[in-house]
């Protein structure tokens, strides 16, 4: 397993995709933080937490996870990958762990960057900011969300196989279907895997005063979603003929 995990991490390091996603995610996150810090007159503690949670890495790691497995079909490399690692279940586990780690790393880079820049701007502007303990609290939540969404992305990519369909699908679900479901019934919508259950881990739902799932429940819900998609993907991956 360790060799498979190292191989998956090496795959990530040997294409430009990961670096490009880090750069894009970092750029977008910094843009939002800088504009918010400069243009907002004052911050409550809750608003400061929201500011430092403006981490776009979750979305990007979800996409990267999808590409991690669906891309094997897109580039027709799945045959070579399975020839090298014929135990398909172990291969899937290695990918899930690798993209969870990549998600945490991506979020670490982005979150630390926005915290450094945001804290500096808020301090210079004499606005409310967060102490080290609160920043650490935001940091682990961001990292955990990115790791969980990286794992979820791999499973979704393996299930759908078509990379474009999978990416467009999760964007539609995340930006349209989940908000509609939440609007219709918040008690159901808060269990949604792409936006609302992760908000439970954050501890708030941005731009609303609604109460999300508590963090332990949110983590369990996310693990359940990952478990369901993992089981479906493992079943199809193991039974599928590669012709």
């Amino acid at each position, binding site marked *: 397993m360790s*060799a498979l995990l190292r191989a998956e991490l090496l795959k990530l390091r040997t294409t430009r*995709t990961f670096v490009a996603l880090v750069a894009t995610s970092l750029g977008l996150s910094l843009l939002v933080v800088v504009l918010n810090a400069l243009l907002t007159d004052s911050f409550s503690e809750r608003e400061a937490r929201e500011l430092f949670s403006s981490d776009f890495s979750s979305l990007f790691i979800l996409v990267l996870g999808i590409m991690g497995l669906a891309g094997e079909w897109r*580039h*027709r*490399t799945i*045959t*070579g990958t399975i*020839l090298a690692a*014929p135990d398909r279940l172990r291969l899937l586990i290695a990918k899930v762990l690798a993209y969870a780690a990549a998600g945490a790393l991506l979020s670490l880079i982005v979150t630390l960057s926005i915290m450094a820049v945001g804290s500096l701007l808020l301090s210079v502007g004499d606005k409310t900011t967060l102490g080290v303990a609160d920043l650490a609290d935001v940091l682990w939540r961001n990292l955990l969300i990115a790791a969980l969404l990286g794992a979820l992305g791999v499973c979704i990519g393996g299930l759908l196989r078509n990379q474009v369909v999978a990416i467009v699908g999760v964007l539609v679900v995340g930006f349209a279907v989940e908000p509609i479901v939440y609007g219709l019934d918040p008690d159901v919508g808060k269990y949604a895997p792409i936006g609302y259950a992760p908000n439970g881990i954050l501890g708030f739902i941005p731009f609303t005063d609604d109460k999300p799932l508590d963090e332990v429940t949110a983590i369990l819900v996310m693990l359940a979603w990952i478990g369901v998609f993992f089981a479906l993907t493992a079943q199809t991956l193991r039974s599928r003929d*590669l012709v």
Partner: protein
Amino acid sequence: MAPVEIQNLTKCFGSVEAVKDLSFDIEPGRVTGFLGPNGAGKSTTLRALLGLVRPTAGAATFDGQHYEQLDRPNTHVGAVLEDAAFHPGRSGRNHLRVLAVTGDHPQSRVEEVLGIVGLTDAADRPAKGYSMGMRQRLAIASALLGDPHVLILDEPTNGLDPPGIAWMRDLVRGQAREGRAVLISSHLLAEVAQSVDDVVIIARGRLRARGTLEQVLGGDEGTSTEVRAAEIDRLAKSLQAQGHRVERDGEALLVLGVAPEQVGEVAAAERVALRYLAPRARSLEAAFLQLTADEEAPASEVPA
């Protein structure tokens, strides 16, 4: 126990029977050509062997073990499949580094196989910039990475230019000389005839023939003699009178299943002056076409 053994292999895709009750094995130190028309079931057989498709019935094993059961499989088997593909943004060297990590091989082995296939200078270029020949070489390097004792090559000369084909032929022969069992699937019969020791021919998923190349070509019976003479008609009658089958081929006669010495003796006895006398071997193409012409016919096996 044979390094590669296929026993009563059957694979159905829905109602389509791609491979039916196929059995053969291959031996170490020999190159076996795996031949058949398009859609004969060659690729399905190889993919079943490599655990990529699941057999409906029967088994395909390496030293008695299924591919999935092999510990560090690429130390046992190296495979180049027809659709060998690489991530377009990853360099050849990095592609091999990933495989080396997966198979727990030292990184020095990456440089060794790059040298074997002559890709060292291009190793840091992204694979999307590789020519077809370079991609085939990279696929071969991937197969050799674990120094396996079995090589499976599906249409390895596809897209190669003549120097590339010659290189592939030398490589394959060299691998067999070092004791490896090599199984080559190909539709380039003239090329295969120059490379293989043994032949397995299938059509419609069924075995048509197997044996050494010489056996499949018909041995002495597969060899004919081409003869030209001043009195060609008289020589033809004399040969027919002695029970030989004779065909007219332009200005020449083709005496089927007879060695040149016998034809020469008949000509000398009849005092016919010869202008040309030479053996003409039955080609693999002719044997292949004959063996696969009637695809509904029951499988016939050339005794090994």
